[in-house]
Protein backbone atom coordinates (compact mmCIF):
# COMPACT_ATOMS: atom_id res chain seq x y z
CA UNK A 1 0.00 0.00 0.00
CA UNK A 2 1.37 3.44 -0.88
CA UNK A 3 0.08 6.98 -0.68
CA UNK A 4 1.60 10.43 -1.10
CA UNK A 5 0.04 11.63 2.17
CA UNK A 6 0.45 8.60 4.38
CA UNK A 7 3.70 6.72 5.11
CA UNK A 8 3.45 2.97 4.37
CA UNK A 9 4.98 2.11 7.74
CA UNK A 10 5.34 3.94 11.05
CA UNK A 11 7.40 2.81 14.02
CA UNK A 12 8.19 4.03 17.50
CA UNK A 13 10.39 2.59 20.24
CA UNK A 14 9.80 3.24 23.92
CA UNK A 15 11.84 2.06 26.86
CA UNK A 16 13.27 0.32 28.64
CA UNK A 17 10.28 1.18 30.82
CA UNK A 18 11.51 2.20 34.28
CA UNK A 19 9.81 2.26 37.69
CA UNK A 20 9.85 6.07 37.41
CA UNK A 21 8.02 5.88 34.05
CA UNK A 22 5.30 3.76 35.64
CA UNK A 23 4.99 6.02 38.71
CA UNK A 24 4.83 9.12 36.52
CA UNK A 25 2.17 7.57 34.29
CA UNK A 26 0.16 6.47 37.35
CA UNK A 27 0.12 10.10 38.51
CA UNK A 28 -0.57 11.55 35.06
CA UNK A 29 -3.32 9.08 34.18
CA UNK A 30 -4.93 8.58 37.59
CA UNK A 31 -4.51 4.80 37.26
CA UNK A 32 -2.99 3.87 40.64
CA UNK A 33 -3.46 0.09 40.38
CA UNK A 34 -0.55 -1.33 42.46
CA UNK A 35 -0.04 -4.03 39.80
CA UNK A 36 1.94 -1.34 37.96
CA UNK A 37 3.91 -0.08 40.96
CA UNK A 38 4.43 -2.77 43.57
CA UNK A 39 6.52 -5.88 42.78
CA UNK A 40 4.89 -7.88 45.57
CA UNK A 41 1.36 -7.17 44.32
CA UNK A 42 2.49 -8.06 40.80
CA UNK A 43 3.93 -11.39 42.05
CA UNK A 44 0.70 -12.22 43.90
CA UNK A 45 -1.15 -11.63 40.63
CA UNK A 46 1.16 -14.03 38.78
CA UNK A 47 3.67 -11.61 37.20
CA UNK A 48 7.41 -11.72 37.85
CA UNK A 49 7.62 -7.91 37.49
CA UNK A 50 5.18 -4.95 37.72
CA UNK A 51 3.26 -4.60 34.49
CA UNK A 52 3.13 -1.57 32.21
CA UNK A 53 -0.21 0.28 32.04
CA UNK A 54 -1.97 -0.71 28.83
CA UNK A 55 -2.82 2.95 28.42
CA UNK A 56 0.89 3.86 28.45
CA UNK A 57 1.53 1.46 25.57
CA UNK A 58 -1.55 2.89 23.84
CA UNK A 59 -0.31 6.47 24.35
CA UNK A 60 2.95 5.47 22.63
CA UNK A 61 0.96 3.83 19.85
CA UNK A 62 -0.93 7.09 19.30
CA UNK A 63 2.39 8.95 19.31
CA UNK A 64 3.62 6.84 16.38
CA UNK A 65 0.83 8.48 14.34
CA UNK A 66 0.96 12.03 15.67
CA UNK A 67 4.77 12.17 15.33
CA UNK A 68 4.33 11.59 11.59
CA UNK A 69 0.97 13.27 10.87
CA UNK A 70 0.61 15.86 13.65
CA UNK A 71 -1.52 16.45 16.75
CA UNK A 72 -5.20 15.75 16.15
CA UNK A 73 -4.59 13.42 13.19
CA UNK A 74 -6.04 10.31 14.87
CA UNK A 75 -9.78 9.79 14.20
CA UNK A 76 -10.11 6.40 15.85
CA UNK A 77 -7.79 4.06 17.70
CA UNK A 78 -8.44 0.52 18.82
CA UNK A 79 -6.14 -1.72 20.87
CA UNK A 80 -6.40 -5.27 22.13
CA UNK A 81 -3.90 -5.93 24.89
CA UNK A 82 -2.95 -9.45 23.83
CA UNK A 83 0.13 -9.62 26.06
CA UNK A 84 1.52 -7.92 29.12
CA UNK A 85 4.42 -5.47 28.93
CA UNK A 86 6.52 -5.46 32.09
CA UNK A 87 8.93 -3.20 33.93
CA UNK A 88 12.23 -3.18 31.99
CA UNK A 89 10.68 -4.02 28.62
CA UNK A 90 11.43 -1.99 25.53
CA UNK A 91 8.27 -1.64 23.46
CA UNK A 92 8.26 -1.34 19.68
CA UNK A 93 5.09 -0.06 18.02
CA UNK A 94 4.65 -0.66 14.29
CA UNK A 95 1.79 0.53 12.11
CA UNK A 96 1.18 -0.61 8.54
CA UNK A 97 -0.90 1.31 6.02
CA UNK A 98 -3.80 -0.91 4.94
CA UNK A 99 -6.09 1.39 2.95
CA UNK A 100 -6.75 5.01 2.01
CA UNK A 101 -10.37 6.10 1.70
CA UNK A 102 -11.06 9.74 0.84
CA UNK A 103 -8.86 11.78 3.20
CA UNK A 104 -8.45 9.06 5.81
CA UNK A 105 -6.02 6.17 6.08
CA UNK A 106 -6.50 2.92 7.91
CA UNK A 107 -3.50 1.33 9.60
CA UNK A 108 -3.05 -1.98 11.37
CA UNK A 109 -1.05 -1.84 14.58
CA UNK A 110 1.26 -4.31 16.32
CA UNK A 111 3.26 -3.60 19.47
CA UNK A 112 5.85 -6.08 20.68
CA UNK A 113 8.41 -6.32 23.44
CA UNK A 114 12.05 -6.41 22.34
CA UNK A 115 12.11 -10.19 23.00
CA UNK A 116 9.28 -10.68 20.49
CA UNK A 117 6.30 -11.05 22.84
CA UNK A 118 3.11 -9.68 21.30
CA UNK A 119 1.65 -6.85 23.42
CA UNK A 120 -0.95 -5.04 21.32
CA UNK A 121 -2.79 -5.64 18.09
CA UNK A 122 -5.14 -3.02 16.81
CA UNK A 123 -6.04 -0.50 14.17
CA UNK A 124 -6.35 3.23 13.61
CA UNK A 125 -7.99 5.67 11.24
CA UNK A 126 -5.98 8.83 10.71
CA UNK A 127 -6.17 12.01 8.68
CA UNK A 128 -3.32 13.97 7.12
CA UNK A 129 -4.65 17.12 8.83
CA UNK A 130 -6.13 17.68 12.32
CA UNK A 131 -9.75 16.90 13.14
CA UNK A 132 -11.89 20.08 12.82
Amino acid at each position, binding site marked *: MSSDKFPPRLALDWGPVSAVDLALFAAAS*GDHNPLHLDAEVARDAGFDRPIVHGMLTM*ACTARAFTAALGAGSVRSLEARFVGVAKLGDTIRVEATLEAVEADLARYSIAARAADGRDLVTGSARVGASPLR
Partner: protein
Amino acid sequence: MIDRALIGHVTTPTTLRIDAWRVKLFCQATGERDAVYWDEAAACAAGHRACPVPTTFLKALENEHLGAAALLALMGAPIRGVLHAGQSFEFLAPLHVGDTVEICRRVADIYDKKNGALTFVVVDTDYRSGERAVATSRQTMVLRSEVDPA
Protein backbone atom coordinates in the same frame (compact mmCIF):
# COMPACT_ATOMS: atom_id res chain seq x y z
CA MET B 1 -19.32 -13.05 40.81
CA ILE B 2 -20.24 -9.63 39.54
CA ASP B 3 -23.94 -8.82 39.61
CA ARG B 4 -25.23 -8.78 36.02
CA ALA B 5 -27.86 -6.28 37.18
CA LEU B 6 -25.09 -3.69 36.85
CA ILE B 7 -25.29 -3.96 33.06
CA GLY B 8 -26.77 -0.66 31.96
CA HIS B 9 -25.57 1.21 35.05
CA VAL B 10 -24.85 4.83 34.08
CA THR B 11 -22.57 7.14 36.07
CA THR B 12 -23.66 10.63 37.06
CA PRO B 13 -21.93 12.93 34.55
CA THR B 14 -19.18 15.22 35.77
CA THR B 15 -17.76 18.23 34.00
CA LEU B 16 -14.00 18.72 34.09
CA ARG B 17 -11.80 21.49 32.73
CA ILE B 18 -8.74 20.57 30.69
CA ASP B 19 -5.95 22.21 32.67
CA ALA B 20 -2.60 23.00 31.02
CA TRP B 21 -0.59 21.41 33.86
CA ARG B 22 -2.43 18.11 33.48
CA VAL B 23 -1.76 17.98 29.75
CA LYS B 24 1.91 18.77 30.31
CA LEU B 25 2.21 16.06 32.97
CA PHE B 26 0.57 13.58 30.59
CA CYS B 27 3.11 14.53 27.89
CA GLN B 28 6.02 14.09 30.31
CA ALA B 29 4.70 10.67 31.32
CA THR B 30 4.24 9.41 27.77
CA GLY B 31 7.44 10.69 26.17
CA GLU B 32 5.59 13.31 24.13
CA ARG B 33 8.06 16.00 23.04
CA ASP B 34 5.92 18.02 20.60
CA ALA B 35 5.54 21.53 22.11
CA VAL B 36 2.15 22.08 20.43
CA TYR B 37 0.57 20.41 23.49
CA TRP B 38 1.88 23.00 25.98
CA ASP B 39 3.19 26.02 24.02
CA GLU B 40 0.30 28.11 22.69
CA ALA B 41 2.50 29.89 20.12
CA ALA B 42 3.68 26.54 18.73
CA ALA B 43 0.08 25.32 18.68
CA CYS B 44 -1.16 28.37 16.76
CA ALA B 45 1.77 28.16 14.32
CA ALA B 46 0.71 24.55 13.60
CA GLY B 47 -2.85 25.71 12.85
CA HIS B 48 -4.55 24.87 16.17
CA ARG B 49 -6.80 27.45 17.92
CA ALA B 50 -5.12 26.56 21.25
CA CYS B 51 -2.98 23.72 22.60
CA PRO B 52 -4.57 20.43 21.50
CA VAL B 53 -4.71 17.45 23.86
CA PRO B 54 -2.72 14.24 23.26
CA THR B 55 -4.72 11.47 21.56
CA THR B 56 -5.42 9.29 24.59
CA PHE B 57 -5.47 12.11 27.20
CA LEU B 58 -9.24 11.75 27.73
CA LYS B 59 -8.51 8.56 29.65
CA ALA B 60 -6.82 10.65 32.37
CA LEU B 61 -9.91 12.84 32.71
CA GLU B 62 -12.06 9.72 32.67
CA ASN B 63 -10.13 8.35 35.65
CA GLU B 64 -10.93 11.53 37.55
CA HIS B 65 -14.61 11.09 36.68
CA LEU B 66 -14.74 7.40 37.64
CA GLY B 67 -11.80 5.12 36.90
CA ALA B 68 -11.64 1.36 36.67
CA ALA B 69 -10.80 0.93 40.37
CA ALA B 70 -13.77 3.04 41.49
CA LEU B 71 -16.05 1.33 39.01
CA LEU B 72 -14.99 -2.13 40.19
CA ALA B 73 -15.41 -1.07 43.83
CA LEU B 74 -18.96 -0.14 42.89
CA MET B 75 -19.36 -3.71 41.65
CA GLY B 76 -17.81 -5.18 44.79
CA ALA B 77 -14.86 -6.50 42.77
CA PRO B 78 -11.23 -6.02 43.85
CA ILE B 79 -8.86 -4.22 41.49
CA ARG B 80 -5.94 -6.54 42.33
CA GLY B 81 -6.12 -9.06 39.50
CA VAL B 82 -7.84 -6.88 36.93
CA LEU B 83 -6.23 -6.45 33.53
CA HIS B 84 -7.03 -4.06 30.71
CA ALA B 85 -8.06 -6.29 27.82
CA GLY B 86 -9.03 -3.73 25.22
CA GLN B 87 -9.59 -0.06 24.57
CA SER B 88 -10.96 1.93 21.66
CA PHE B 89 -11.63 5.59 20.96
CA GLU B 90 -13.59 7.47 18.32
CA PHE B 91 -12.66 11.15 18.06
CA LEU B 92 -15.46 13.35 16.73
CA ALA B 93 -14.29 16.91 17.38
CA PRO B 94 -11.04 18.53 18.54
CA LEU B 95 -10.39 19.34 22.21
CA HIS B 96 -8.02 21.97 23.53
CA VAL B 97 -6.55 23.15 26.81
CA GLY B 98 -9.13 25.33 28.56
CA ASP B 99 -12.13 23.41 27.18
CA THR B 100 -14.54 21.70 29.56
CA VAL B 101 -15.57 18.09 29.01
CA GLU B 102 -18.64 16.34 30.39
CA ILE B 103 -17.95 12.65 31.00
CA CYS B 104 -20.49 9.88 31.50
CA ARG B 105 -19.80 6.12 31.64
CA ARG B 106 -22.12 3.17 31.13
CA VAL B 107 -21.60 -0.52 31.90
CA ALA B 108 -22.30 -2.00 28.46
CA ASP B 109 -21.78 -5.68 29.21
CA ILE B 110 -20.53 -8.24 31.74
CA TYR B 111 -19.82 -11.79 30.58
CA ASP B 112 -17.79 -14.86 31.50
CA LYS B 113 -15.38 -16.97 29.47
CA LYS B 114 -13.60 -20.23 30.25
CA ASN B 115 -16.34 -21.47 32.61
CA GLY B 116 -16.16 -18.35 34.72
CA ALA B 117 -12.35 -18.31 35.09
CA LEU B 118 -12.46 -14.94 33.33
CA THR B 119 -15.10 -12.24 33.70
CA PHE B 120 -15.13 -9.39 31.18
CA VAL B 121 -16.57 -5.98 32.02
CA VAL B 122 -17.21 -3.61 29.10
CA VAL B 123 -17.65 0.10 29.82
CA ASP B 124 -18.59 2.75 27.27
CA THR B 125 -17.81 6.42 27.83
CA ASP B 126 -19.27 9.54 26.23
CA TYR B 127 -17.33 12.80 26.23
CA ARG B 128 -19.19 16.01 25.40
CA SER B 129 -18.07 19.61 25.24
CA GLY B 130 -20.90 22.12 25.32
CA GLU B 131 -23.61 20.69 23.07
CA ARG B 132 -21.17 18.69 21.01
CA ALA B 133 -20.17 15.02 21.32
CA VAL B 134 -16.36 15.13 21.10
CA ALA B 135 -15.44 11.47 21.58
CA THR B 136 -16.60 8.04 22.64
CA SER B 137 -14.60 5.17 24.04
CA ARG B 138 -15.00 1.53 25.04
CA GLN B 139 -12.89 -0.16 27.72
CA THR B 140 -12.85 -3.91 28.29
CA MET B 141 -11.48 -5.20 31.58
CA VAL B 142 -10.86 -8.80 32.52
CA LEU B 143 -11.08 -10.17 36.05
CA ARG B 144 -9.27 -13.47 36.69
CA SER B 145 -10.87 -15.74 39.27
CA GLU B 146 -7.58 -17.50 40.14
CA VAL B 147 -6.20 -14.17 41.33
CA ASP B 148 -9.34 -12.98 43.11
CA PRO B 149 -11.38 -16.04 44.09
CA ALA B 150 -15.06 -15.32 44.61
